[in-house]
């Protein structure tokens, strides 16, 4: 090897052990992330397991057109957007407010105990969370049923049968689970506030509340914007698990979202499953997600000079 002529190759050869470290992670990411991306071409094919991905016939955009023209298109996109937007509106401001409030409390012990308690629900699994909801809000055996019975003398209506209640329950149980955990990042950002600003503001006669608005909030604004970009960029991706577990035939009209629909079309009924169609829906969703995050990031960069990249 002509080492003098290739300083770059030379340096790479010197770092060979480092590349060796990367070997397994890179192979992993290619196989388990990029191969499925390639596999998504079955969205444009009439995939048959017997012919394989490469051997199946091309059908162009037929699956996409089929999806756009179906009633499920409107319904799934609507539900996904409503759940997402509702979650952002209900769940985004609370961790910020909580962090600002807890930060202005000076009793360290009280602060620590409350912070520990409110982060606990973050560790409840989705399965258990839905199980808790179903038990507490059961209209005959749960706490909800018992209270309703005590008040009115009869069992209250079944909450899991109502599409609109599904949304409230989905969103607010999520808020309950995540606001404490979500506030950690803001508490961390708040610890970077220079106490001198507070002292100066205090000398100028600012109240604690005014100092929150004029000292604390501006400091954590970049963090808030980053979190908002991530959240809004993700608006079209609502996780599969919780919606699927809470889903039943009675609330289906509100609880079917893109991810659960993809599953039910593609993988649920192995006899009649349409893998290509499901992939097309998923791919459409992923592309929208990608566009969303890029656009939101651009806008945020222009408006506030804070962006992800």
């Amino acid at each position: 090897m002509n080492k003098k002529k290739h300083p770059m190759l030379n340096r790479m050869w010197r770092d060979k052990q480092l590349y060796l470290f990367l070997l397994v992670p890179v192979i992993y990411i290619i196989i388990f992330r990029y191969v499925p991306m390639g596999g998504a071409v079955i969205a444009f094919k009439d995939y048959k397991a017997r012919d394989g991905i490469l051997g199946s016939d091309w059908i162009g955009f037929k699956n996409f057109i089929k999806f756009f023209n179906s009633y499920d298109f409107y319904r799934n996109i609507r539900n996904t957007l409503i759940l997402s937007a509702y979650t952002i509106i209900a769940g985004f401001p609370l961790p910020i407010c909580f962090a600002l409030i807890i930060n202005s409390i000076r009793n360290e012990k009280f602060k620590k105990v409350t912070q520990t308690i409110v982060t606990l629900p973050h560790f409840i699994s989705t399965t258990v969370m839905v199980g808790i909801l179903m038990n507490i809000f059961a209209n005959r055996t749960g706490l909800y049923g018992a209270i309703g019975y005590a008040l009115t003398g009869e069992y209250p209506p079944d909450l899991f049968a109502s599409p609109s209640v599904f949304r409230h329950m989905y969103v607010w149980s999520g808020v309950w689970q995540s606001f404490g955990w979500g506030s950690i990042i803001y508490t961390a950002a708040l610890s970077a506030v220079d106490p001198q600003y507070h002292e100066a503001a205090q000398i100028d006669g600012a109240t604690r509340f005014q100092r929150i608005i004029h000292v604390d909030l501006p400091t954590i604004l970049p963090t808030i914007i980053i979190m908002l970009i991530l959240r809004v960029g993700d608006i079209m991706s609502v996780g599969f698990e919780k919606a699927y577990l809470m889903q039943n035939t009675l609330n289906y009209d509100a609880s079917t979202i893109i991810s659960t629909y993809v599953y039910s079309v593609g993988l649920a009924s192995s006899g009649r499953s349409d893998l290509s169609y499901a992939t097309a829906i998923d791919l459409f969703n992923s592309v929208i997600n990608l566009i969303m995050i890029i656009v939101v990031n651009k806008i945020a960069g222009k408006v506030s000079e804070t962006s992800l990249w």
Partner: protein
Amino acid sequence: MKTKTSAAKKPRIGWRDKSFYAICYTITIILTITVLYPILYIIAASFSSASALMSGKVWIFPVEFTTVGYEAILKYKDVWIGYRNTIFYTVTGTFLNVCITMCCAYPLARKTLIGRSKIMFLFTFTMLFGGGMVPSYILVRSLHMKDTIWAMLIPGAMSVYNMIVARTFIQNNIPDEILESTKIDGCSDTNFFFSMVLPLSKAIIAVLALWYAVGHWNAYFNAFLYLSDKELYPLQIFLRDILINNQLSSDMDDPEAVAQRRTIQMLLKYSLIVVSTAPLFTFYPFVQKYFVKGVMIGSVKG
């Protein structure tokens, strides 16, 4: 720092501030109770009799104390299979995750590595875009991983987000000077990793291990998608069957148990919620600082 100075100076607190603090405490207490109450209720319910539960007598303390629910769990074989498998997946999975994550983060933390940004992009792009559920399923199936433990360990072997956090940590905490001086002493990159990087990264390894472990403990989706053999099911799948789908297997063959099934079923559910979540809840307060630390490192742009 802040509390010290304000305590030393004793600035007079006006009525506006006083009422503001009062509001702060009130809101915090209300939020804490809102979080705590359902948890306490479930614990109380798991120790109460079914009839007390049905008649709404249980509020915060157990009524007609009983451990029937927990006894039912002891007899319930599925729960033990689930527990055993979940512990196995959590331990092996976390070990594998941490190894791969550190091996990936270490070279990418080296600023002089050629192609670093391109390799970085290869990883970060997967956070923005993916092939989706069905192609992943086909992949796992064609690798013959379906219905094997590998389906639970390999497809999620590394989280790119965690890798970036680890990389940020290594970049910020292991100065280039150490590398240079050890290089002069003839230390290879591999030696440097084991003798310097790993010992100095204990904090981030703890963070990664905890994050991954919680993920494995609570994971449901991969098992749901890839496993159909009951012997391999993690706890979460059994929990779904019992808590949500109301499927109690007939393994509970004890004739007495079958007779009392209806009432036991309800208590069993509450007890199961407690038993499956208790390990994380009791563990968390002791390792809280690592979780917080991880979030803080993650919030810094690397």
